[in-house]
């Protein structure tokens, strides 16, 4: 299935917001989303959530003969899978560009940086070595796959325990977990990727882009660093032009972020270790939050309410008092009740329907269907009063997105409008079509 393309007004809105240094979810330019790490019941299995982006990592091992030109080193194999579960745009089995890019990045970040000691994976030189396989699956795509994947990968590798092995002469004994405790992998350092999204030819940059921001970005710069401030890999992609000091600045920001994230990882690993030792319950079943309706809550987002009072007063003074809303429930038959009346069928009278929808557009920014209906009853009654007043210039053409009306005549809902009017005009086209659809039902 093809992914829905981003509409032009949304693109413009996002770019304007970025110019004003605002992001959709209220973060600052250099802020990361919340990182949550949860472990599975097996060693080496973990899920990392970066905001809504979720990546599952699983590490497994196997004894195999080594590569002929590297007889004393273990083999590492990394694999990242994008399935349609993550986003409707991904297709199974197709080697898309994105997949290749991500895979190579993960490989370079984890393999070339030598974070895992491959020599220690050797059992019998030239005959048997451990092959460590890291599988990453993207469960949900909300931007910035590479960061989540790198965190998941390194956490899984740190968490993994391989079976203990002892060699007596020519004989190799592999102990099961019951016989001897499994041994962790020897990991030198933890490289973490940080992505920077660039906009407007490099003038604005954001850390940890969400999916919407990724659609409008010019390009991305990924820097992988570990907490010793060693850069493990840098990759710039997307055809952006960078300048040297931008790169250096990004690397400084990366150092800070990586320190934070590494701390978080350490804490999570320690917690899990503690829980397992104490014999408590661990695994995914415990870490999935209960999503009951009564327990569901959204994280509170800070809203800028500085100018709200002035705005609200302005709106109130301009608006007429709303006409009486029929809030008494009307009992038709026992067991059914109706609040308010439906809108008048306006098929025959085209002009009136256009006025109604124009009135509705002015009045609402984000309303549910029910609220729309209620408001329509208000609007139609007000409009009938002002029908004989000034002629209202409307355009019949469907293409024009902006319908100009006298804004003072219409009651406006007092809603805290923290977004600029730009968003309102961009929503008008959308609402116009929405109203037409609903009238058709």
């Amino acid at each position, binding site marked *: 299935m093809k992914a829905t393309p981003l509409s032009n007004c949304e693109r413009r809105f996002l770019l304007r917001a970025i110019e004003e240094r605002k992001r959709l979810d209220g973060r600052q330019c250099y802020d990361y989303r919340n990182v949550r790490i949860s472990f599975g019941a097996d060693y080496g299995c973990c899920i990392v959530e970066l905001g809504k982006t979720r990546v599952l990592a699983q590490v497994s091992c196997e004894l195999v003969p080594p590569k002929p030109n590297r007889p004393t080193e273990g083999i590492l194999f990394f694999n990242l899978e994008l399935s349609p579960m993550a986003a409707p745009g991904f297709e199974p089995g197709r*080697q898309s*560009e994105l997949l*290749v*890019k991500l*895979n*190579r990045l993960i*490989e*370079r970040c984890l393999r*070339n*940086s*030598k974070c895992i000691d491959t020599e220690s994976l050797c059992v019998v030189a030239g005959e048997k070595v451990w092959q460590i396989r890291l599988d990453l699956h993207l469960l949900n795509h909300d931007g910035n796959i590479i960061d989540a994947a790198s965190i998941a990968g390194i956490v899984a590798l740190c968490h993994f325990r391989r079976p203990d092995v002892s060699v007596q002469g020519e004989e190799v004994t592999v102990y099961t977990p019951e016989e001897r405790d499994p041994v962790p992998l020897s990991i030198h350092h933890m490289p973490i990727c940080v992505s920077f999204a660039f906009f407007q030819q490099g003038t604005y940059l954001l850390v940890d882009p969400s999916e919407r921001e990724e659609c409008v970005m010019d390009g991305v*710069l990924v820097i992988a*660093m*570990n907490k*010793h*401030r*060693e*850069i*493990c*890999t*840098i*990759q*710039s*992609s*997307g*055809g*952006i*032009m*960078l*300048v*040297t000091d931008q*790169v*250096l600045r990004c*690397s*400084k920001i990366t*150092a800070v972020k990586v320190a934070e994230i590494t701390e978080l990882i350490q804490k999570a690993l320690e917690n899990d270790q503690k829980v397992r030792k104490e014999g408590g319950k661990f695994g995914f079943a415990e870490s999935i939050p209960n999503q009951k309706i009564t327990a569901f809550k959204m994280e509170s987002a800070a809203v800028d309410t500085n100018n709200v009072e002035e705005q609200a007063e302005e709106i109130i003074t301009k608006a007429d008092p709303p006409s009486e809303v029929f809030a008494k429930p009307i009992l038709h038959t026992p067991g059914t009740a109706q609040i308010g009346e439906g809108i008048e069928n306006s098929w025959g009278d085209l002009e009136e329907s256009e006025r109604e929808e124009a009135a509705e557009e002015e009045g609402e920014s984000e309303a549910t269907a029910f609220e729309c209906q209620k408001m329509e009853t208000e609007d139609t009654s007000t409009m009938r009063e002002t029908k004989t007043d000034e002629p209202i210039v409307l355009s019949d053409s469907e293409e024009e997105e902006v319908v100009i009306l006298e804004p003072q005549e219409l009651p406006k809902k007092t809603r805290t409008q923290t977004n600029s009017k730009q968003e309102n005009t961009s929503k008008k086209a959308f609402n116009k079509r929405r109203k037409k659809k609903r009238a058709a039902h």
Partner: protein
Amino acid sequence: PPQMRGSRSKALPDRALVNCQYSMATFSTGERRRRPHGDRQASELALQLKQTFEAAILTCLYPRSQIDIYVQILQADGGEYCACVNAATLAVMDAGIPMRDYVCASSAGLAEDTPLADLSSPEEAAGGPRLVLALLPASGQIALLQLSARLHQERLEAALEAAGEACRALHAVLDRVVRERLQEVTALLGD
């Protein structure tokens, strides 16, 4: 050599599409290689070439068309990507496709605090950090930056400098070659 033709489903309405394919001859490296195509590394290098040239070529002048760049490595001795970029730059220049600037690429590395420019195959295999830089020399803008293996943050600047120097030197060479060729061609045409 690049060529232009209309591509069917992937045509962009306002820009040209740049399509790159990278392959290594089987005799190019020390051990005989099979599978010149379909390798993950080959796909990645092709992607990076594509990205570099999409940024450098003025694609908005050729809407709804495609520019193909095919690169074949005859002998690999380290720095394949850089050689590809330089060769492709010359080819695009020769074909007369307008670009923002020459794209010069060079790799750089560090060997115990000394930055080295243009690593060869044994230097790469030694496992030190390796930085690949594709630069537009006039403006100093970086079209592609890629680093593998560990490099301390403090040394990043030194490595970038070394690579930048090498790119600028390369730019001088490329420029001279292009001008010489132009003179040849015009002399031949003029007769």
